[in-house]
């Protein structure tokens, strides 16, 4: 090859790198491993972690151990999906494009909104991007966020907002729900958006309709962050008046994977279409009149609009969105409702078992979906340590994010948890205090 190019050595090709900055040594990296050695080494490294297959997991707090049908991993492992890139050439990318179109359609169905994009990095960044949209749309520079929104989502929002010069004010809670009086008092004609999560971080279903009413009185936008599985049984945020709906879609067929990769989703009304960040797929026809799908409305995006783009997002979480699409297809209309109903029933069963023991008290009395908060006489970290000895991963210590909720314990119950597992948790947790 070199001789055909008229070169003597590969080094010649690197002649443009100035001498002083050339690396004259080997990189200091561990020695290369063969595939056999690598597999064995990583197997051992992975076994230093306690994984959910070997335990009963009651930890949620934004990442959930839901059942994933076998078809999901099987189909997303098709190389045509996972080794392709962004579908810039629609003639040879109709598979990805149609799947995204189906994803957008399903997200619209769940959320009750007109349009959805092709995915965001996660629920937290989707929320931050929704705020940027609302600020751009309203020309106002202040947002109000319920402090019942996931603590990490609020952290991410604060990071984004700080650099954009957006003021973020937190609204406190009352009985585990956003304090609507405090919201009404804080909301003004300076408010670009109000952000409410439902079910919120405590697992409680917020009154989005009331939040929408307060928000719209001041012509601000309501951003709702939602659990997509809950929407199989809960009224859609669109119906309740939300203007932008975001959420984390990890629960839709994506492994928990130490918190990533999952996906975020975003849906909104037609009125906000041109403010939407990220990729959007639309339906059109080819020169022969055949139905086809294509990336569209691209003048919003960074590769066309550069510093005037609605967002800087380029790569998203396409394969995770595909997993979500396959998940929603395989479970289907009735299956997703069944998942939601199982979560709801089981979470209430465990809640009641713990409360009836007398060792745990409810922190709030508002209706919840698949997660709930209880409190006990002792330290939750010690309780979780004790449970771990019995291969149970206990709940989230609420005190970490809410210092006022001392000994608060947030438990998540998905459809995967069995009655014996819940009984075992209840028994061990109660024994811990005997």
């Amino acid at each position, binding site marked *: 090859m070199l001789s055909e190019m008229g070169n003597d050595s*590969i080094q010649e*090709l690197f002649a443009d790198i*100035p001498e002083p*900055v050339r690396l004259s040594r080997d*990189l200091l990296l561990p020695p*290369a491993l063969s595939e056999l050695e690598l597999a064995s080494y990583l197997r051992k490294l*992975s076994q*230093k*972690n306690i*994984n*959910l297959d070997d335990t009963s*997991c009651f930890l949620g707090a934004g*990442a959930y151990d839901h059942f994933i049908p076998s*078809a999901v*991993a099987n189909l997303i*492992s098709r190389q*045509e999906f*996972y080794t*392709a*890139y962004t579908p*810039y*050439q*629609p*003639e*040879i990318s*109709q598979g990805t494009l*149609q799947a995204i179109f*189906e994803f957008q*359609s399903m997200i619209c*169905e769940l959320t009750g909104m007109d*349009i*959805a994009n092709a995915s965001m*990095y996660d629920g937290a960044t989707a929320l931050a991007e929704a705020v940027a949209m609302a600020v751009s749309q309203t020309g106002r520079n202040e947002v109000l966020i319920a402090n019942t929104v996931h603590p990490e989502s609020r952290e991410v929002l604060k*990071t984004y907002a700080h650099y954009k010069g957006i003021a973020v004010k937190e609204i406190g809670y009352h009985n585990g729900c956003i304090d609507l009086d405090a919201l009404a008092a804080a909301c003004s004609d300076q408010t670009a958006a109000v952000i409410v999560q439902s079910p919120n971080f405590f697992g409680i*279903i917020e009154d989005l309709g009331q939040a929408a009413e307060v928000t719209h009185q001041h012509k601000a936008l309501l951003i709702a962050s939602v659990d997509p599985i809950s929407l199989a*049984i809960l009224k859609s945020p669109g119906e309740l008046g939300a203007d932008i709906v975001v959420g984390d879609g990890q629960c839709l067929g994506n*492994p928990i994977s*130490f*918190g*990533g*990769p999952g996906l975020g989703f975003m849906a909104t009304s037609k009125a906000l279409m041109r403010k939407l960040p990220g990729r959007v797929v639309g339906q059109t026809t080819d020169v022969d009149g055949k*139905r086809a799908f294509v990336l569209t*409305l691209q003048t919003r995006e960074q*590769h066309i609009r550069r510093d005037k783009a609605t*967002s800087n997002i380029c790569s998203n*979480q*396409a*394969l*995770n969105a595909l997993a979500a699409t*396959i998940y929603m*297809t395989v*479970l*289907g*209309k*009735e*299956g997703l409702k069944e998942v939601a109903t199982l979560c*709801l*029933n089981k979470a209430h069963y465990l809640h009641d078992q713990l409360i009836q023991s007398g060792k745990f008290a409810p922190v709030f009395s508002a209706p919840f979906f698949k997660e709930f908060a209880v409190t006990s006489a002792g330290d939750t970290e010690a309780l979780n340590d004790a449970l771990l000895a019995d291969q149970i*991963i206990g709940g989230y210590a609420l005190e970490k994010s809410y210092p006022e909720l001392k000994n608060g314990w947030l438990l998540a119950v998905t459809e995967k948890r*069995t009655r014996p597992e819940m009984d075992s948790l209840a028994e061990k947790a109660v024994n811990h205090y005997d």
Partner: protein
Amino acid sequence: MIKNEALIFEKSVPGRRTSLLPACDVPERDLGSMIPTEFLRAQPPELPEVSEVDAVRHFTALSKMNHGVDSGFYPLGSCTMKYNPKINEDVARYSGFSRIHPYQSEKTVQGALELLYQTDKMLAEITGMARVSLQPAAGAHGEMAGLMIIKAYHQHRGDTKRQKIVVPDSSHGTNPASAAVVGFDVIEVKSNEFGGVDIPSLKAVMSDEIAGLMLTNPSTLGLFEENIVEIAEIVHQAGGLLYYDGANMNAIMGKTRPGDMGFDVVHLNLHKTFSTPHGGGGPGSGPVGVTKELVPFLPGPVVERAVDKYVLDHNRPLSIGRVKSFYGNFGVVVKAFAYIRSLGAAGLREASETAVLNANYIRARLQDDYELPFGKTCMHEVVFSAQKQMKFGVSALDIAKRLIDFGYHPPTIYFPLIVKEALMIEPTETESKETLDEFIEAMLQIAREAETNPELLKSAPHDTIVKRLDEVKAVRKPVLRYAKEV
């Protein structure tokens, strides 16, 4: 309207489903006794109702309408579509990696923390940085985090005047877009006749209002910035910082390092340089690395090594804060870690050398038939222009579409913006000489066809499931979701 594969909604049959879940093993209560009825939905969302085999056939049919790296050559410039080793997919699925919760206690995830810490250290060595945060989810996200670090650094010094970021006119669109997201004003500098930063123009814009310069090196033209040492001096003397867009890192592993060139902040694309698959548009991973001075500003938490264990350090008062939930796209990081451990130092250097060799081989073999705007040795990608073919009315788009007929994914076209009718070809190191030769023959044939039969190119592609699309209609009358025909 003729349809290819029907939408999954169009295959839906009321009541059809696959049973996947066990019966409820706790007492079932009425929904209304747990949730007030005003919160409950009257009808479930209209998701498809199909059997598992319907679903599997549907998505299998869709997959067949795609071209992936495993389908064939994918020389999409700037995207580094290298082969994705299969072992990486397997290891990321080990239950010890894929089935761990981000809030498990640190003592139960020591393997994951060790992997994050070691990846941080290895990427720091590869880039010449002090530390690397693995939190950003994609390249643009890494850019955003890196620019926040630059802003936080200046603000921490009380230097609040620096509100502008300089980018070359050849830069990726994400660069100015990320600068805008972070609240910077964007100043564009033009490129010189050799495709590098025009030094006089750069000097002219430097001032005490400039926070930094974002540079891709090799540039998006596939050329190494020969004046990098001088550029770094100019920016640093003016009090600015130098940002390295690592999209083209695949050209220089083990040959030079951004840190040695004078860069202060670096982002990498693990889905480009470090072989993790692109997934049809993601997930990626965009780690951001910094010099020692900037480490306190990294997004938190950061994994640290204590005497006998790894810990998550949340106590970082100068940190820009969190940019994503949890610890980034961990599953993607596992694959990149596996890649680096497979190749080692010599393997990474050889990967870059071969990537550069392959690009130059294509350059040498096609430069008589396609205009080469910058007639010099390139790095890992080569940018041609279709200006010669334009004389026959054939555009870069037509050439791209004709390549599809030969079984190739087209190169990146119309980027960088400063090259008219750009065709940006990045072969990567994982392609053989035979593959390159076949591609070159196709390109040569297309060059001949442009002269003799331009219509053949303008009507391409010919054998795909759909032909060229009406993209204007998609914008004018947006149809962005399925709606039941009534």
